[in-house]
C-alpha cells in the first residue's frame, strides 16, 4: 500500500470541442470507499467519469490513480492499470452475444487466460445473465443489459470501478438486482465511484457523497450528513 488515495482529481477541466463542462473540479476517493456523485442532469457527472477514464482528454488539471499521473492518457492505457468504467448506456456490443460481451471484459492478456473461470463465476452470480448467454446484446431488456454490463465490468480484477447511473431507466425490481450486486461489491472491499441523479437508491452503499453542479463539486460529505441536511435535500436533490 502506498497510502495514496485510490483516485485523486485536481483542478480538472474537461468538455467537448468548445464547451467546457467540468471546471476546476477536485475529488478524492480512498481505497475501499464507495463514492457517489449526485446532481441534476447535464451538470457534468458523466463527463467527469469520461475524463477520469480517458475517453475524453482533460484540457487542464490532473487525474491520479494511486499517485500515478494518468492525465491525458488514452482510455485503453488507463484501463490496463485496473480502472474499469461501466459507461452510461451500458456500452454493450449490440451485435455480439452476451458471452462475447463478457469475453471482451477479459481483453487484457492477463485476464484473458482466466476468462473461462471468470465467465463461470459471473454466470453463478447472475443467473439471468447465464440464461441469455447466447443471445445478442441488442435483444436484451434494460435490466438484463445493465447486469451484463456489470458482469462484464467484473470479468477482470480492478482497482477502481466507475459506474454511470446504475439505476437509469430500470424497473424497480431490476434496480434492486443491480444494487444488490453493487452491495456485494462493496462488501468485497471494492473501490467504487457511482453516478446517480438522486439519493433514492444509494443509501445502503454510499460512504461519501459529492454533489456536482455546473461542472464542479459544490458539497461533499458522508452520506448520513448530506442526506439529513434538509437544505441540501430540498435544493439539489428533490425529495428523498
Amino acid at each position: 500500500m502506498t497510502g495514496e488515495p485510490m483516485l485523486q482529481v485536481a483542478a480538472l477541466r474537461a468538455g467537448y470541442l468548445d464547451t467546457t463542462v467540468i471546471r476546476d473540479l477536485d475529488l478524492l476517493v480512498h481505497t475501499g470507499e464507495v463514492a457517489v456523485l449526485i446532481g441534476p442532469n447535464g451538470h457534468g457527472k458523466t463527463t467527469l467519469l469520461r475524463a477520469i477514464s480517458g475517453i475524453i482528454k482533460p484540457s487542464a488539471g490532473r487525474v491520479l490513480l494511486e499517485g500515478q499521473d494518468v492525465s491525458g492518457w488514452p482510455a485503453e492505457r488507463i484501463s490496463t492499470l485496473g480502472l474499469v468504467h461501466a459507461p452510461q448506456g451500458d456500452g454493450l456490443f449490440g451485435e455480439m452475444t452476451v458471452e462475447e460481451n463478457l469475453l471482451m471484459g477479459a481483453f487484457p492478456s492477463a485476464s484473458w487466460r482466466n476468462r473461462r473461470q471468470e465467465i463461470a463465476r459471473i454466470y453463478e452470480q447472475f443467473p439471468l445473465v447465464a440464461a441469455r448467454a447466447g443471445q445478442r446484446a441488442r435483444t436484451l431488456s434494460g435490466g438484463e443489459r445493465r447486469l451484463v454490463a456489470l458482469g462484464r465490468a467484473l470479468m477482470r480484477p480492478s482497482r477502481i470501478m466507475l459506474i454511470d447511473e446504475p439505476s437509469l431507466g430500470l424497473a424497480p425490481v431490476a434496480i434492486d438486482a443491480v444494487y444488490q450486486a453493487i452491495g456485494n461489491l462493496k462488501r468485497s472491499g471494492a473501490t467504487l465511484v457511482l453516478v446517480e441523479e438522486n439519493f433514492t437508491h444509494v443509501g445502503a452503499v454510499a460512504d461519501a457523497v459529492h454533489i456536482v453542479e455546473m461542472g464542479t463539486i459544490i458539497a461533499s460529505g458522508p452520506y448520513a450528513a448530506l442526506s439529513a441536511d434538509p437544505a441540501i435535500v430540498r435544493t439539489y436533490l428533490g425529495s428523498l
Partner: protein
Amino acid sequence: MVATDIVGIAVTTLILGSIYGLVAIGMTLIYGTLRILDMSQGSMVMVGSFIGWGILVVAGLNPILAILAAFAATFILGVLTQLASVQPLMKRRSAIDFEMVTFITTFAVAMVLTNVALELLGPFQRNVTSVVSGSISVYHGVNLPYQSLTMALVSIALMAALGVFLARTRWGLAIRAVAQDLDAARLMGVPVGKLYPLTMGLASALAGVAGVFLGGLYFAYPQAGDLPLLEALIVVIFGGLGSLPGTVYAAYAIGLIQATAEVIVGTTWSLPILYTVILLVLIVRPHGLLGKPSEARL
C-alpha cells in the same frame, strides 16, 4: 434447361461467387471497422498477382509459397497504407468528412502503387502459371479446371477462417467490438491505434491471395486491380455496407445471376443482365441485401 446447364451454372456460381467474396470481404471488414471505403484493395490484388508471377514464373517456386508470400507482403502493405493514408486523419475524424477524405487518400495510394508497378515492371501483361494445372470433368460437357476449383476452395477456406477468427479469438472479438462501440472497446483496453492498421493489413492480405489466383486466370499487370476493385465495390454495396454475411450472400448471388445469364442467353448478355438486376435490387433495397439503415457493423 437441361441437367448440363444446371451443373454448369452451379459450378460457375461456385467459382465466381468464391472469388468475388474473397476480393470483397476485406473491403467489408475495413468498412465495418473503420467506416471507410478502402480504394487500395484493388492494388492489393495487383500486387498479389505480381508476387504470384515473381514466385511461380520468375523464381519457379512452389504455389503454396506464392500464396504465403502474397499474404505476408500485402498484409504489410495494407498496414503501411493505413498508417500513411488513414491513421493521420483519425484524430480529426469528427471534424472532417472522414469517409470522403479517406476514399480519396486510399485512392491516391492505389494510384501510387499502380504507377510504381508500371515504372518498375512495365505495362506488360505477364502470364502467371496456374497454381494447379489440369481439369476434372464434373458432368457431361462440364469441365472444372483445377485452378478454378482450388481458387474456390481456398477462397471459401479463407472466408471461413476469417469468420472463425472474428467469432472465436481475442483479437477477432476486439475488431468486432471496435466496429460496434469504439469508446466501450477502448474501455475494455483494446489498443485501437494498433488494431486499425492490423485490420487493414488482414483485409489487404485476403485481396493479395485473391490476386495470385486471378493472375493465373487473367494476367499480372499494373492495372490488374481495377476490375476487381470495381467488382468488390459492387459486391459490398449489393450485400449491404459493413455486413460480412451480406457480402458473402451478395458474392454468390452475383455469381449465380452472371452464371445463369451466361448459360441461358450467352456471355455477351451476362453483364448487362447482371447490372440490370443489381440496379433493380438496389432501387427496392437501397441498403443492400443485409444492410441496415443504421449501417451494419460486422
